[in-house]
């Protein structure tokens, strides 16, 4: 197994934590993992993204340029990174903030209105990123439920640990949404 | 008659103008501008006293203020 995941969006959308969560969960299952954040110019604002690799063998280059999965949380990220996705790769997009269609025809696409769902069904727009992550997990079977929960403990600062249940709910919601369709598009070894 | 205008594209929704306005007529709009911020606006131009406090506080030089009559 060798997954190369890119996650991109606005700073503040929780893009980096999504990646961290995957990396931690992978590590808890004794997989090789790497996580690289975009480190912006020495200033605030703008976009953020990260690269996460999870693999059974040692990771030669954590700096992959053709991700197997791309998750985009805003429109500029889709515009910028769509072309990099590996042919046959998985694109998960936040349709709440992206009102355009992807151009690629050689990829699998899954849309989640994450902000809307988070706000309406979970009462907090903040966990939109976890819905997207849940959807990804349904598709990939990358890591187990249990590892993700463990990872949440690591990623959330202690004073936010009371939010773990909410985050788990959001992940579950994403999983469910993607659940039915996930088997259909699953690929064996990217 | 308009006395104060906001360049919405420049506004970062920081609220410093709101803090400064002595007559409390500035508020952030519901919509987002291109940078993703809720821009400041004034509907009740009549109440504006053209004091330019807002403009003096705006870090993004997004505000223009007019006064009636010659200088």
């Amino acid at each position, binding site marked *: 197994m060798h997954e190369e995941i890119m996650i991109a969006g606005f700073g503040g959308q929780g893009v980096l934590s999504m990646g961290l969560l995957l990396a931690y969960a992978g590590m808890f299952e004794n997989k090789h993992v*790497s996580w690289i954040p975009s480190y912006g110019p020495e200033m605030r604002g703008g976009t953020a993204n990260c690269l996460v690799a999870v693999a059974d063998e040692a990771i030669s280059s*954590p700096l992959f340029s053709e991700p197997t999965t791309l998750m985009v949380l805003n429109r500029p990220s889709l515009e910028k990174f769509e072309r990099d996705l590996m042919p046959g790769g998985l694109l998960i997009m936040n349709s709440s903030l992206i009102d355009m269609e992807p151009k690629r025809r050689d990829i699998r696409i899954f849309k989640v209105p994450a902000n809307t769902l988070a706000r309406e069904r979970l009462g907090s727009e903040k966990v939109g990123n976890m819905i997207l992550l849940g959807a990804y997990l349904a598709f990939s079977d990358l890591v187990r439920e249990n590892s993700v929960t463990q990872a949440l403990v690591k990623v959330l600062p202690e004073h936010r640990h009371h939010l773990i249940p909410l985050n788990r709910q959001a992940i579950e919601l994403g999983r469910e949404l993607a659940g039915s369709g996930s088997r259909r598009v699953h690929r064996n070894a990217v | 008659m308009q006395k104060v205008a906001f360049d919405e594209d420049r506004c970062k929704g920081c609220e410093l103008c709101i803090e400064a306005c002595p007559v409390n007529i500035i508020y952030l709009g519901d919509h987002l501008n291109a940078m993703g911020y809720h821009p400041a606006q004034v509907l009740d131009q009549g109440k504006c006293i053209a004091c330019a406090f807002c403009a003096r506080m705006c870090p993004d030089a997004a505000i223009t203020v007019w006064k009636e009559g010659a200088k």
Partner: protein
Amino acid sequence: MSKALMKGNEALAEAAVRAGCRFFFGYPITPQNEIPEYLSWRLPEVGGVFIQAESELAAINMVYGAAGSGARVMTSSSSPGISLKQEGISYIACSELPCVIVNMMRGGPGLGGIQPSQGDYFQAVKGGGHGDYHLLVLAPGTVQEMADLAFKAFALADEYRNPVMILGDGILGQMMEGIELPEFQDLSELPPKPWATTGAKGRERNIINSLYLEPEVLEQVNLRLQDKYRLMAERETMAESYLTEDAEIVLAAYGTAARIAKAAVDKARAAGIRAGLFRPITLYPFPKYELRRACQTASQVLTVEFSAGQFVEDVRYHLEFKVPVHFYGRVGVVPTTKEILEEVVRLAGSQGRSQNSEVRSQNSEFRIQNEGF
């Protein structure tokens, strides 16, 4: 032992603490800020001292003071800040004080940018400061190595009484990987430092100095330094060779560039090209024998670097031009596995008839010029 997911910068900082580093003097600069930030709370926890100096110059001179007093001490910075430390580094090297200096390289020259780079290779290995000195330069390639080499750096520094530089880049500092941290060094087992300034109580006084006004004495000092560098070269080279046993083309790269090159090697192998990777871990002393061994079967070498052609000069030098060495560098931008693979495929296809015009023209011209040889 269970793994920890850590940023390279933090792994390095924690490993330094475990190696017995108790003093850190630094100044903020991207992309290494996690090192001072981590140590600012971590060192006091273990009874150490963290000082944010007023500048990189002050920081390196605080290191000079602390190192001469016998402490395990570190400073870190990134390219422009490292340039400011050059005078101080030259003093420390001449005074033969052990310390660790971290450079998480960013794009240059000038203010440049903050993305990863390897543009300070020459500065690190040839000596950016004045005079005939050398740092011992370690180039980690993974977060694990950030920790392991940081740990080892303190031992090497003490052993040779020489400043050791850890030469990383922005990505190595920012990246997280699962790692195992080194065990805590038993501080009671650290080598004694009878030369350190601790007050001349019951002994001859100690002097930390790099001034030698008599030319003959200065020469003796320099010869002693050169002897030391030779000894380091004999004993301390480290390198990784990957699939080089039968390689027809060897990629040579260090640090993050080597990670990308390694992926390209894998892909080249998958495409039926016998590619291999040579990765020096010590950049000074340069592992020249390891390089030559790695290139035994190679008909050509390709260096991959995030710079305009620095590392390649050392590779050519140590191969003594016996194997054609091609160069693939990006300056400012990090190259992709794909573009390196393409270069490998192209070179493999041309069987050493490289298009690398700079190298080519130089060689052919030389042949003509030297027909009389």
